[in-house]
């Protein structure tokens, strides 16, 4: 019935999503749910006992939650931005990872905002944000941006599923599907029959959505940057923040895609889909982004460092002092700006494994960099903090915050685990013959893991 034999072939190759869950799968799901439940318990404690059981205090009013919020939304916007650019640029080698990008976008866009809700002292009044919004407030800018982005990204993700759902519906008899699957695919394929007219309409819709999503995500993440930039705080009040945020978002997004692609390649026998060249391509992107990031980082710090205004001086001292933030500061700079250049730039180090390792290191480094961008700044107001209570002077997150952070990661992985059971993780209907003709002249150290 389908006019695309390659799609059928790929579907047969990637049937694993229909297989009965393995023991390992069940164990990991249970473990992740347990982590998530621990987070729920922490949330329950935070709501009943108040915010005092977190590390947040009058000066560092947000802490790890806002770091997670910024970091996760960055991943989301990056996924949408990269997917949109690849789509409009008709980048053929990138087609297999398109779905992963869109899933990153939607899942992190669902999880991220919860972290800012965790900062609210009165979560019961959350709906006031929609009932009595004040447009002057950067928080309202974020509310509008996130809601807009979420709508567009969910629609975009769903539209890219339609062809695959139709394909699965048409193959339901051949693949011996259970009844709920047949029903699900029939409903959500929206009667798509792959007629030329339907295909044209769908492709047009995807083009328009991609064109909308690119500027939307750039605006949305800039608005998030202004949540900090608009404050009269030394260390935040900087015009570089919005482009810097967008850049670091793309950077973290690329790193996460590499990581997820590798996990799928390992677990789903996808060596032919996520080839070595995918990793080298993205690895080089990672390296270029790391150099850009280093450039932004440097220009952000050097302008303040050169003049060393009084309050900035105390902030800078905290960054350099090994007993305070020194270790985190130096190691995050190394992980973000030097490691990719060394590992990916020098051919001797370059391999799929090393690229994947670097991506993980970059993600950690970027999270730490966000932490350093937020917490020490909050600890350094204009007026000296003259408080005898150490936890009021220096922030340190409690197990409540850490377990809720882990719960977010667990939920993110759970989303991926469940969606992988719904349809192939690669957009099988989009894969065309040309995909196999990708010619790469980037050398790769042979590493057939």
């Amino acid at each position: 019935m389908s006019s695309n034999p390659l799609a059928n072939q790929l579907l047969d190759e990637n049937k694993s999503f229909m297989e009965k869950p393995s023991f390992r799968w069940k164990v990991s799901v249970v473990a992740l749910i347990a982590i998530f439940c621990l987070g729920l318990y922490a949330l329950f404690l935070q709501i009943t006992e108040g915010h005092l059981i977190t590390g947040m205090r009058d000066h560092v009013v947000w802490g790890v939650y806002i770091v997670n919020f910024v970091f996760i939304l960055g991943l989301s916007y990056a996924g949408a931005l990269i997917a949109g650019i690849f789509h409009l640029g008709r980048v053929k080698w990138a087609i297999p990872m398109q779905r992963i990008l869109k899933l990153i976008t939607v899942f992190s866009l669902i999880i991220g905002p919860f972290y800012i809700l965790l900062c609210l002292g009165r979560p019961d009044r959350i709906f006031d944000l929609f009932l009595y919004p004040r447009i002057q407030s950067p928080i309202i800018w974020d509310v509008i941006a996130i809601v807009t982005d979420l709508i567009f990204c969910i629609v975009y993700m769903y539209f890219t599923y339609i062809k695959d759902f139709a394909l699965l519906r048409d193959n339901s008899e051949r693949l011996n599907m259970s009844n709920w699957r047949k029903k699900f695919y029939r409903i959500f394929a929206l009667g798509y029959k792959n007629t030329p007219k339907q295909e044209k309409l769908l492709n047009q819709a995807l083009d328009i959505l991609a064109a909308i999503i690119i500027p939307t995500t750039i605006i949305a993440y800039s608005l998030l940057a202004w949540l900090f930039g608009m404050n009269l705080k030394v260390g935040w009040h900087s015009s570089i923040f919005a482009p810097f945020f967008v850049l670091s978002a793309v950077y973290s997004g690329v790193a996460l895609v590499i990581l997820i692609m590798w996990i799928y390649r390992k677990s789903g026998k996808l060596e032919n889909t996520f080839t070595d060249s995918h990793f080298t391509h993205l690895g080089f992107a990672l390296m270029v982004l790391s150099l850009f990031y280093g450039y932004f980082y440097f220009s952000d710090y050097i302008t303040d460092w050169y003049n060393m205004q009084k309050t900035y001086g105390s902030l800078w001292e905290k960054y350099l002092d090994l007993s305070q933030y020194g270790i985190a500061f130096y190691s995050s700079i190394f992980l973000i700006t030097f490691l990719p250049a060394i590992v990916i730039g020098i051919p001797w180090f370059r391999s799929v494994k090393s690229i994947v390792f670097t991506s993980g290191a970059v993600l950690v480094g970027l999270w730490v960099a966000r932490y350093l961008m937020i917490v020490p700044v909050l600890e350094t107001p204009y007026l000296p903090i003259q408080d005898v209570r150490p936890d009021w002077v220096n922030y340190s997150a409690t197990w409540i915050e850490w377990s809720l952070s882990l719960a977010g990661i667990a939920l993110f992985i759970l989303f991926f685990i469940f969606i992988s059971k719904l349809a192939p993780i690669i957009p099988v209907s989009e894969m065309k013959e040309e995909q196999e003709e990708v010619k790469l002249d980037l050398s790769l150290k042979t590493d057939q893991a």
Partner: protein
Amino acid sequence: MAQTTNTEDSPKEVNSRRDFLRKGSAFGLIAAATGAAGLASNQDPKKSGEKIKVLTTDGKVIEVDKPVDDCEIEPCAPAKGEAARQGIPGRSFVMVIDLAKCKNARKCVEACQEGHDLLPDQEFMKVHLMKDNPDAEPYWFPKNCFHCDNPPCVKVCPVGATFKRTDNVVLVDNDACIGCKFCVSACPYSARIFNWEDKKSYSDDDPNYSPETSVPGQHGTVSKCDFCVGRSREGKLPYCATSCPMGAIYFGDKNEDAVTNGEETLRFKQLIKDRIGYRYLEELGTKPNVYYLPPTDRMFPYERGFNYLSEEQVEVMKNSIKSK
């Protein structure tokens, strides 16, 4: 300039304020020396039959009706809900703190905490030890909310829970605050505090709650100095001003060009002009309404302020002014 000295502070049951607020009236022995006449002309007080003599701005002594009750501004009770957002008409509240007089007795902090029912660690008024440069002598710096004319905290509030009024005062409506703490981080003066702990006296639905008194506070919301506008309605000075043993804190009205510490009343403009009054971090453009008189010719050596602090606190203070 209008001046009256109303030494009576009758504890009449004019409103339904809470007990601990009433306790505060002990501090208000000397009622605001500003503006009975100004008000008498603005408002239309009920006739009491009694006449009082007041001095007009052009130097004439006139007789006006004494207001019926001892409240200065109608309505006497602290405004609630929407009314609390309006501001007292014709007023432009301002505070002047004379740093030369401050010896860190911390009476302002304590009176404010008692009046606003704060926890021992919650301070609307803080006293910092400051040292402007390595060679300068340190000095004590009482700091409350500056009630800025360009308030960074009000700009960032997502739900309009904090607002700027026509009488210069910036208040927080605890009934509307969602506790996002954005205002806390936006304030360059660290003037705002969050109600971290759940106290028995916190209440979400106390009918007596008014943003003008900040009492009772609510768990999970933001609080700060309210310039004691609730007390201004009764003709009383803020808790900090009445409790300062040195009379370092002057409170008044820019429109009337008068500030008072309860003992002496001074012309605001002349005072700022003569003593080169300044506003802290003027360059941020926040336009505060709290002015400081420079700590020149200090009345005490700053070390005397350590007597009022624990050893631990002294250590923290000394460390924070250590020149690097």
